[in-house]
Structures are given as structure tokens and as C-alpha cells.
């Protein structure tokens, strides 16, 4: 029986659990921080000594923790890129700009258990010699910003922040910074520009890798809310224990946001790879299946940027056979384990771990038009292919959904989408806006063509018999 595994959300939804410090302390809060601050230097067999900071950084690497924001990049590796010899201050920013359509997991953490995030951040800051950190929360979460500010004040009052934290000699200050409604601020270099008080135009990499030239051109770590919470648990349970959760190379838990046409939409924390997409959608412990009388049509597996899966789609995946040998198997979309690597192997991604389920009541062209409008609105406008392409795609889809389509629109859409990503834009928004269009049209092409063709046929009829149309219009009024 697949089931939830609550690590990050262990207490958040318990009756009576409140977001204040007292409650957090009653549930063992800030013990991992104390443990981290009190770590003695460790002497290795080869005589080398590891500082407490190095030990935590090693542990995060050993734990296998991968970023929970979207890219799934190794957190330990990301930290290892930080330029520690520049002599400049190192900054840490929590990316709390949760705005990938379909995603609502960081919202739960920040609103219900803000101290867990703060503790994870303090430990991550300590491990990386950071003395000033920010929580960049999206502007549309004013309540979350208030709760975090209150939690920070509580932490300061108990010397969990500020000078000489708990007598350790370590200083750290932390502030909340609010965005103002722009999706592109979730891109880490755009976020940094925004934090510097500018338009959030992403920076080109190289040279502006945040680990080297980030906030104020200083080394900077940008981590997602859930990623930073995990740091606390890695310290609490030890890297080896943490790595036992989930599956190899996909360790720990993930909070999956499930929305759309299921009976029980919501957020579900699972061991990564221990539950399949089908179980997340259909099992009574999770989505509870589709609405009565409906059939599955499509699934977006990792936030709206992820390539769509079509119901009954099959993938050839290399899996361990009964004798331990790797064999190629046909795997149905619903039987894909929900993890980073399986979804990449299937040509999509788990992204921000947001699953959007669509049943057979959905007009797939309308669905893509909705997604395309989002990207057209949110493109920052810096790079021509993305600024123009996202708008052209949205306009073509608008006409397809407003009776003005053409049979050739399907090919036209793909032609635009193919010319946006792949190094033609500064940031990955180019990919993010193209992937839905490429995948929707490739997998449901007949529906796009049929819709456009029907519009064309109707227009031909209208021009052939204009007097009938006029009469009809007159009768209508």
C-alpha cells in the first residue's frame, strides 16, 4: 500500500499545531541547530581536520539532497561551487517565490511551520559562513510574509538569530523581502536582480553564476524553501539515515502538489520514487481517482513548464530486472515512479513536484491556450525569442480557441516553440514556455488540427453564403 511519509510536514497539519516559536520548541524545534553549532571538529583517518561547517556541507552532499524548486540539482554540489576565497561576504537567499502553476507546497511550510524554514536556513547559513540572508517571498503571500517576520522576531528575541547565536560566536541576520507579482523572480538570477531593487531580468551565465557573482556580485546561494527545510532534517537524523529515505539518487521526501480533476486534490508528502504517478492520482491515500464517469486524458507531471503526458502513453525505460540485470521495459505513464530521474527518462520532469490532472472533459487546446497565456504574460521581455515567441504562441492559441483557427496552426505553434529554447535565451524561461507547446501539440496533434480545420470550414461556408449569415445574425439580434 503506497502511503504518505511525513518528514517536512510531520506536524504542520496536526490539530493544535501553531506557527509560533513555543509550539515549534515543544516539538523539538531548534535542537538540530544546537547540534550543528556544537559540532566538534572531526579528524579524518588521513589526519585532515574537518570544521563543523565542512562536516555539514559534506553531510548535505552525502545525503543526496536535490533541489526541490524545479531543476533537481544536487544541493551539496551547488554549495560546493561557492567561491570561498574571494574575501567577499557570502549571501544566502531562500527562494520562496513559489509561482510555478500547479505548485502550492512552500505555501504550506511558510504558513504553518515558518520556524522549520528559519532553522533550516540558519543551519545552511552557518555551514556556508553566511552572515546575512533573505527570504524572498512572493508578493501575493502577505500573510506568509507577516508570519515569517513574526517568527524572525521570535527567533531574534531568543538569540537564535543576531549576534553570537546561542553563545556559539556565530552571527547571522535574516530579513523577509517581498516580490511584487512577477513569475520570473523565481529564476535565481532574476530573483537576485529583484532583491537588488531592479527589474528581475535574469543574468547571463557565464559569468554570473550566483555561487561566484550573485547578490551585489558576491558569492550567493539560492535554495528553495523545501530544500532548506531538508537541511535541518539531514543534521537531525544524519546524512546516511536521510539517504535511506526515497530511492537511490532520489533521496528524501517530496511534497507533491496535486491539482485538477481528482477527487482529493491537495499536497502529499511521499518518499521520492516510492509512489507512482498512477497511485498519486488514483489511490485513496492520495488523489482518490478521477471524478465519477470520467476518464484520464492528460497529466502535467511537474508544474506547467513540464512536458505533458498523455493517458496510456508508454515509455521504454531501463530498469532492474528480476536477476539484477538492467533491462529495457515498456512502462505506462501511470506506472512511472514519481521521482527526478524516471520523469526525466520519460522525457518530462518532476520540476516543482506539481501534478495537474486533466480528465476527458478538458479541451486540450483550451488547456494549452491557458498555459501559453501565462507565459506570454510572464516573459520578462529581455530576450527577443522568448518575448515575441511566447506572445505569438499565445495569440495563435487564442485564435484557435475563439473560432479563428487554421489547420496549419499546429505546425505553426511547433515552429515557433522550436525556435525559442536551446541557448537562444538568457534563462530557462525559453524552455519553460516552449515545452508545454511542443509536447501538447506533439501528443494531441489531431485535436489541434481538427479544431483549426473546423474553423476554416466554417469560414469557407460563411464567405460562400454571406446572405444566410446576415439573416442568421439579424434573427439573432
Amino acid at each position, binding site marked *: 500500500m503506497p502511503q504518505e511519509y511525513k518528514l517536512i510536514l510531520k506536524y504542520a497539519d496536526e490539530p493544535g499545531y501553531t506557527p509560533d516559536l513555543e509550539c515549534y520548541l515543544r516539538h523539538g524545534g531548534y535542537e538540530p541547530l544546537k547540534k550543528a553549532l556544537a559540532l566538534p571538529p572531526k579528524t579524518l583517518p588521513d589526519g585532515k581536520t574537518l570544521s563543523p561547517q565542512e562536516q555539514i556541507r559534506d553531510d548535505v552532499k552525502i545525503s543526496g539532497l536535490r533541489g526541490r524548486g524545479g531543476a533537481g540539482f544536487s544541493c551539496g554540489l551547488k554549495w560546493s561551487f561557492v567561491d570561498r576565497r574571494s574575501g567577499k561576504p557570502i549571501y544566502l537567499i531562500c527562494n520562496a517565490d513559489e509561482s510555478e502553476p500547479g505548485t502550492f507546497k512552500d505555501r504550506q511550510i511558510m504558513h504553518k511551520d515558518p520556524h522549520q524554514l528559519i532553522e533550516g536556513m540558519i543551519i545552511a547559513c552557518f555551514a556556508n559562513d553566511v552572515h546575512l540572508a533573505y527570504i524572498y517571498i512572493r508578493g501575493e503571500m502577505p*500573510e506568509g510574509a507577516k508570519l515569517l517576520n513574526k517568527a524572525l522576531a521570535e527567533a531574534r528575541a531568543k538569540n537564535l538569530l543576531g549576534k553570537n547565536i546561542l553563545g556559539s560566536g556565530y552571527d547571522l541576520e535574516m530579513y523577509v523581502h517581498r516580490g511584487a507579482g512577477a513569475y520570473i523572480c523565481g529564476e535565481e538570477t532574476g530573483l537576485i536582480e529583484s532583491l537588488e531593487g*531592479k527589474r528581475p531580468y535574469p543574468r547571463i551565465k557565464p559569468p554570473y553564476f550566483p555561487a561566484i557573482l550573485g547578490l551585489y556580485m558576491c558569492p550567493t546561494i539560492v535554495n528553495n524553501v523545501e530544500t532548506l527545510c531538508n537541511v535541518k532534517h539531514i543534521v537531525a537524523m544524519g546524512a546516511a539515515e536521510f539517504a535511506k529515505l526515497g530511492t537511490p539518487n532520489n533521496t528524501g521526501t517530496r511534497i507533491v502538489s496535486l491539482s485538477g480533476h481528482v477527487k482529493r486534490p491537495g499536497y502529499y508528502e511521499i518518499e521520492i520514487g516510492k509512489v507512482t504517478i498512477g497511485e498519486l492520482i488514483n489511490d485513496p491515500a492520495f488523489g482518490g481517482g478521477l471524478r465519477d464517469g470520467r476518464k484520464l486524458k492528460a497529466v502535467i507531471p511537474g508544474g*506547467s513548464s513540464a512536458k505533458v503526458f498523455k493517458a496510456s502513453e508508454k515509455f521504454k525505460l531501463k530498469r532492474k530486472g528480476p536477476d539484477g540485470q538492467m533491462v529495457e521495459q515498456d512502462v505506462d505513464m501511470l506506472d512511472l515512479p514519481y521521482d527526478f530521474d524516471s520523469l526525466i527518462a520519460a522525457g518530462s520532469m518532476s520540476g516543482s513536484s506539481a501534478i495537474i490532472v486533466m480528465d476527458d472533459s478538458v479541451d486540450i487546446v483550451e488547456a494549452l491556450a491557458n498555459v501559453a497565456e501565462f507565459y506570454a504574460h510572464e516573459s520578462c521581455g529581455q530576450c527577443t525569442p522568448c518575448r515575441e515567441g511566447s506572445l505569438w504562441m499565445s495569440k495563435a492559441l487564442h485564435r484557435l480557441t475563439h473560432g479563428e483557427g487554421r489547420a496549419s496552426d499546429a505546425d505553426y505553434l511547433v515552429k515557433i516553440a522550436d525556435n525559442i529554447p536551446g541557448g537562444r535565451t538568457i534563462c530557462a524561461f525559453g524552455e519553460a514556455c516552449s515545452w508545454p507547446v511542443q509536447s501538447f501539440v506533439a501528443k494531441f496533434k489531431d485535436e489541434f488540427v481538427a479544431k483549426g480545420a473546423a474553423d476554416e470550414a466554417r469560414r469557407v461556408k460563411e464567405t460562400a453564403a454571406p446572405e444566410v449569415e446576415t439573416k442568421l445574425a439579424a434573427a439573432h439580434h
Partner: protein
Amino acid sequence: MNATHTEPIPNPLQSQAGFAVPAALEAEVNELVTHYPEKRSASLMVLHAIQEQFGWISQEAVEWTAKKLEVQPINVYELVTFYPMFRPKPMGKYQIKVCRTLSCALGGAYELHQHFCGKLGLDAHAHGPQTTKDGKFTVEFVECLASCGTAPVMMCNDAFYEGVSHKKADDIVRDCK
């Protein structure tokens, strides 16, 4: 080129008669500035504070912010025009923001938006925020509000509402005094 006389550059910012920053707001802004190694970083937070006070961001507010943060007015103006939450003109007293992105659309967001517009006498198909003649309500579509499991969702000013039925929408409007 005649250098002695030029037409002023058109400025979409509006003027705010009698603009004055109350002491409490100035203190708040001074505090915000201390959170950053560079003053300019406080821009977004200062604009939020100003908008909370006045409801919108005027020409004078942009100039005041620029002076405070030691940047050019254009550096503040370009933020007001980029970030959707900043308002360059007065809006309704109650601002209803209906999420329109996919999961909410699947959950009836367009019908909900239509319901608000119908109830308040606004054009649901017009582009951008629509404000009632009496200035009481502004209704607009916004992009994903990050609560897709409880679609459709919306905000009314800072308050957040989930699973908004048309009945619940009516209650929200009724409670806006």
C-alpha cells in the same frame, strides 16, 4: 534642433495632490533601508509600504522613493511599470484578484470572474483590472496564486480565499463595507 524649447516627455504617472509621507511611514521606510547593504535593494519593500499607505504609487511617491534611496526616478518608475502588483493609478477600495491559471481554470475560475463582473456591472472581457464607477471594487484576473489544490482561489485585498463558490463570492462582496 531647437534646444531652447522641447515638449515634455509623456509621463503616464499621475500626480497626487498634497502628497506627504506620514512620520510612521517614514520610520518604517528608514527601518527597511537598514535591512540591506545597498539602499536601492529596499525599493520593492518601500513601494509596498507606500502602496499600503496610499493605495497606489504616484509621480510624487516615485520621486520621494528615488530621493530616499538615492537613485534616479526612472529606477523606481521602471519597477512600478514592471511588477504587476504595483499600481500607477488609484484602484478600487476592494481589489478582487481571481486566479486564472490552469488548475483554477479547470476548477471554474473563468465562471467565477464572470460572476464577479456580472454582479458588479463590469466587462469580463475587457483587458486588465476593471474598477466600478463608485471606486469601490476592482476586479482582475491574476496568474497562479499557488493554492491549486483548492481551486478556484482568489484574493480580496490581502485576504486569501480558497474553493470560492458563487455563493461564497457573493458573501465576500457583501462583507466589503
